[in-house]
C-alpha cells in the first residue's frame, strides 16, 4: 500500500480479524490490514477477505 499522505510504500504491521455479528451473513469475516508509513508516520488500513 502507498501512503495516502506522501506516496511512500507503507509497512504492513498488523492483521485484525473482524467478526461479523449478523447471523444471516455466511461469508468469511474480513481481516483489517494495518499499515504505517516509515517516511511521514501516517497510518492507514484496508479490509481484505481471507483466503
Amino acid at each position, binding site marked *: 500500500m502507498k501512503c495516502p499522505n506522501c506516496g511512500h510504500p507503507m*509497512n504492513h*504491521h498488523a492483521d485484525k480479524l473482524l467478526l461479523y455479528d449478523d447471523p444471516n451473513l455466511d461469508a468469511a469475516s474480513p481481516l*483489517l490490514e494495518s499499515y504505517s508509513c516509515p517516511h511521514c508516520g501516517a497510518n492507514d488500513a484496508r479490509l481484505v477477505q481471507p483466503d
Partner: protein
Amino acid sequence: MTTSDSPDLSAEALPLYIPVILGTVRQGRMSQRAAQLLTAELARRPHVETELIDIARLPLPTNDAGEAIKDPEFSARISRSDALVIVSPEYNHGYSGMLKHVLDSCLKEYIHKAVGVAGVSAGVFGGARGIQDLLPVLRELGLVTIFWDVNFANVNQLFSPDGTLSDERMLPRIDQFLKELIWMAKTLRHGRQHITLQ
C-alpha cells in the same frame, strides 16, 4: 537531496503525539483535574505533544453506536497518536459507559498504539476495579496496555479547590507511568513503521 543542514523529516524524528482522554461526561467530575495534571506532566516531556480530549465535547449521537458514529476530528487525532492516556473514573465498580461509547467509535486508529490508564475514585482503590474491567476492551481494540497505572484515590482530598495537586507523593508514580508509556510509544512506532508482519 539530504544535507547535514536539512531538517530531519523522517517519521522517527517527529515528536510523539500522546493525547489524554478525559473519560467521563458527568457534571462536577473530579477526573478533569486528574486529566489536566497528566496533560501538564506530559507537556513537560521533551519530544512529546499532547492535548486533553474531553469526551463531553465530542458530538457523538446516542441513538447508534460503533464506527457508524465516528467523529472525523476524534478519528484523526487517534490516528495521528502514538499512545493514549485514558483517565477513567470508577462508577459503581465499572468504567464510564460514555467512555466505552466513544472508544467503540474507532478501530483501525488504535492498532499497535500504546495506552496507559489512570483510574479515579472517591474511595481508596483509585479506580482499580474500573481499570481491570477496561483492560480487555483496550486489548480487543488493538491497543497495547502498559503495566503501570495511576490511581487517583480519595480524589476529593487529592486536589485543592483551585485544582492543584495537594499530595505531591503522586508525582513520582506519574513519572514512572509516563516513562513506561513513552518507551512503549517509541517502540511501537518503530514496529509499526519498520517491522513487517510475517
